[in-house]
């Protein structure tokens, strides 16, 4: 089943409240997805030539400080970091390839949840309320955020099946539905140099978009390509460094509601996840059309 939610701020003055506005949206989708939950928040951007990694270690007492010191020395990079529960966010002056390579070699138990200049992904197995409390979601700031509550149907309740999925710089995707041609597509994408962490179908969709964007597509073009190349049921909400998009497959069995005011664009699987937003009474509320790309992007800084 699964629930998906997203909130994209048009009014930067709401930035400090992003997490507080989003938390009740995520929790409202508990009935659609009580098994695991997660979110990708965009904000606190690092300067050019820097990257930000969200890292997870299964041991809550893992020694991040030592790892940070080693990374700093061995990558000879400026580095700052902070910890949030069993996740750490490392900001370093390095490129994606060398950073990924170093962690793969020297910190095999560390899972890289996201890489980018703006994105941080936090996800865990458990109820949405537990995940939002564990990571102190309500205090977070940013520009946009997308989230997922999972009801596992085809694969186990594990971290590997938890959304959001990210396969490239600042790109992430949450999915309600199931894809039927993901195995072949994964093989094709691997040949294009896209790497995958799991066997999950939704990760393939994220990988597909990463590939199309890398080949020079705009977000809108990449999503229009997805309508042709992905077979199955899907409602996707996608985040990029500057953008936010929603798309449904042509059959459109999986639900979606959009709401827009002067201050924000919000997306949810069901309207009941939007009722806590300010000014929702007077918002434009509509159901996105099948096979239609809805995208909002701010001009890159």
């Amino acid at each position, binding site marked *: 089943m699964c629930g998906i939610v997203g909130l994209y701020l048009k009014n930067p003055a709401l930035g400090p409240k992003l997490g507080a506005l989003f938390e009740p949206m995520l929790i409202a989708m508990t009935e659609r997805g009580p098994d695991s939950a997660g979110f990708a928040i965009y904000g606190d951007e690092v300067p050019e030539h820097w990257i930000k990694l969200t890292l997870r270690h299964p041991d809550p007492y893992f020694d991040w400080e030592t790892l940070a010191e080693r990374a700093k020395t061995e990558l000879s990079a400026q580095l700052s970091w902070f910890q949030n529960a069993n996740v750490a966010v490392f900001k370093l002056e390095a490129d994606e390839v060398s950073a990924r390579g170093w962690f793969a070699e020297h910190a095999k138990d560390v899972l890289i949840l996201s890489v980018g200049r703006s994105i941080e992904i936090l996800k865990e197995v458990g109820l949405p309320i537990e995940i939002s409390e564990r990571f102190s979601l309500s205090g977070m700031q940013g520009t946009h955020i997308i989230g997922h509550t999972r009801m596992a149907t085809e694969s186990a309740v594990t971290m590997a099946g938890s959304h959001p999925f990210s396969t490239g710089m600042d790109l992430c995707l949450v999915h309600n539905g199931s894809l039927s041609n993901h195995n072949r597509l994964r093989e094709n994408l691997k040949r294009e140099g896209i790497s995958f962490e799991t066997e999950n179908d939704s990760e393939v969709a994220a990988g597909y978009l990463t590939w199309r964007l890398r080949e020079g597509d705009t977000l809108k073009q990449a999503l229009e390509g997805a309508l042709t190349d992905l077979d199955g049921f899907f409602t996707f909400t996608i985040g990029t460094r500057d953008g936010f998009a929603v798309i449904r497959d042509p059959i*459109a069995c999986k*639900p979606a509601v959009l709401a827009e005011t002067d201050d924000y664009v919000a997306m949810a699987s069901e*309207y*009941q996840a939007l009722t806590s937003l300010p000014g929702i009474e007077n918002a434009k*509320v509509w*159901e996105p059309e*099948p096979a239609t790309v809805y995208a909002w992007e701010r001009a890159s800084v």
Partner: protein
Amino acid sequence: MRTIDITHQSVRDLNQALHDQAPECTEREWKVLNPAGKHNIACGLDQNLSVDIMGHTGYFCGGMNKKAHLVIHGNAGQGVGENMMSGSIRVKGDASQAAGATAHGGLLVIEGNAGARCGISMKGVDIVVKGNVGHMSCFMGQAGHLVVCGDAGDALGDSLYEVQIFVKGNVKSLGADCVQKEMRAEHLQTLKDLFNRSGIDEEPEAFKRYGSARNLYNFKVDNASAY
């Protein structure tokens, strides 16, 4: 008039209070505050009640309705009026997919647009949509009327039985076995009656009629050799 705010009471409590009116009606008019997109609001009613729902509703609002008259002052989620038997439901905003699915009777009026599969497998209900309907509307429709004052999406009336479909705007495509049919005097009268009942101001002459070519729902003897 009795007002129930479902911020403070559960949908179950609301529905029980409405069901309690079935044997004997002691309160004709009801108002529901803060529906907040909750599912199953005012389902299974069986009394001539008038229920105003003041906001957007979730799935299956007014499902299985008998005799009652519901007005949703907002948008309706999936399956509004599914399997309704009689009475009426009016949606002031848009309706999501499968509005009026399998409904046997009564009147469903949608003042905005309806999503995909509007009137899927309808069995006698009359549905009047002021705006557009989405793809696969009236799929396997068996009886009743579907009136669309705007446009219809892909595959309208696919595998249709005996629903009469009237569309004023464009039909993106017709489904299997659905064809345009002649608009005769009795059909203009049917439409006029539907507009009167639904309080919608339209000219019947502006509409086209669609129905079943009846090629699909009988067994084709040519296929007998397959058995």
